[in-house]
């Protein structure tokens, strides 16, 4: 096990914990950003350079920035929600996630010896996209349609403001 692997794992775990358990939402957004960057580092470590670049570009650069943006617009610190959670709900929540973690860990533990590490012959951008544009071209086209639909949907939803009719 390499030093870098352990370092990345520890960092990812720390930032993920901060994401979930931080009281301030802006801090959890920044922690999510760092988690995503660390996952990008893991991709690099696993040999898929292109995916790590995409991860930083899309997830850390665009998705996380949207979160930070919205959190700064909606300042939750000003309107705190003080309703108490019922104890039983909390226990069930923790139990659910612990059980699922246990099951997953058990599955991984039972199969970890059979997992091999294959050196990818060619994980360059060209090899990846050769496959994307031949075998996967229909999902790819559908994904572009999905993105277009998302853009249109966001514009429609954001413009749907009856109190202040915006200029067209």
């Amino acid at each position, binding site marked *: 096990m390499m030093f870098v692997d352990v370092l990345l794992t520890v960092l990812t775990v720390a930032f993920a914990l901060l994401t979930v358990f931080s009281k301030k939402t*802006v801090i959890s957004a*920044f922690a999510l*950003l760092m988690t995503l960057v660390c996952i990008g580092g893991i991709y690099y470590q696993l040999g898929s*350079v*292109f995916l790590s*670049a*995409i991860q*930083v*570009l899309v997830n*850390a*650069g*665009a998705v996380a*920035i949207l979160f*930070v*943006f919205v959190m*700064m*617009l909606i300042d939750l610190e000003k309107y705190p929600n003080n309703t108490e959670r019922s104890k039983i709900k909390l226990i069930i929540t923790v139990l659910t996630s612990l059980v699922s973690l246990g099951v997953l860990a058990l599955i991984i533990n039972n199969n970890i010896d059979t997992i091999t590490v294959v050196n990818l012959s060619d994980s*360059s*951008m060209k090899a990846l996209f050769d496959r994307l544009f031949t075998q996967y071209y229909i999902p790819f086209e559908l994904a572009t349609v999905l993105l277009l639909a998302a853009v249109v949907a966001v514009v429609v939803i954001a413009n749907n403001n009856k109190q202040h009719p915006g200029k067209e």
Partner: protein
Amino acid sequence: MLELILETLIKAAIIVGLPLGSIPIILVVERRGAGFMQKRLGPNRVGPFGLMQPLADVFKFLFKEEVEPSHVRPFFYTIAPLIALVVAVMPLAVIPVAAPFDFNGKTIFPEVFHTDLGIFFAFAVSALGSYGILVAGWASNNKFSMLGALRACAQMVSYELSLTTAIVAMIFLYGSNDIHSIVAEQTGYWFGFLPKWGFFVQPVAAVLFLVGIFAESNRLPFDLAEGESELVAGYHIEYSSIKFAIFFMAEYVHMLVLSGLFIILFFGGYSLLPGMELLVGDSALMLTIMQVLSFIIKISLMVWFFVWVRWTLPRFRYDQLMMLGWERLLPLGIFNLIITVLVVHFRNH
């Protein structure tokens, strides 16, 4: 292993030290250039021709009292300038100033981090550039700062799109992401005198990219993030002394990085300027020196261009900026991309 670490450290020191060290020179050029364009003298009192002015500025920034207002969020307030500077410096790791050269029987890449996704990596990292500004604006806990930060962030995200269309068009044209092969494609001449620079093939993409650079680095005419007349000073109102200076440095480094990428994509990167071949001869050492020199000359011209535009064009209004980005540049970029793809396709088949 030790050798590798040493090599990387030396390269990193040079590649970070050079731009940071050149900032004082840019400052002189900027302030004296402003004076020149506005028919006044500019700062000319410190040293010969005012050349020592940035030194005096640095001392002023270092020794001024550092005021931290009581209403800021202390942790984020402190790390915001550092985020801005670190993110601005990171893309420098993939920008080469010369072709790979032989040293002690070993091929050395002049960039710190050699990857065949060079251009892509640089843009992935500089996409994080808005975080420094956003954190600063939010941590200052001031409405003007917040407005400035939100403006800067929206502006950077919007102009990244047209910038990306320009880059993708160039990547299609050169058929590679590797900076060295992009530069190799641009070495040589058409008809014996016109350099094979990307600018002459893709002027539309070049213009898109150039506008994008100005928007990304928050320089006039797109410095809405600072807009003195509306926002006092934008995201760095609450910053004083060295923290303010670090924001300043980050802005200049960001500008240098983006001009470096512009030169790599459109003006041949480190390929020799016309006429320089005569000076090189057969010497490999001379070739490397001349390549570095070409790159530096091109970057200097870009910096002068930045100063020139800054003191020529007035600031845009915010809605004009957004309209220009989304309704003019983005469709133009996509149109240009489609044409490029078609041309490249028919050229290859």
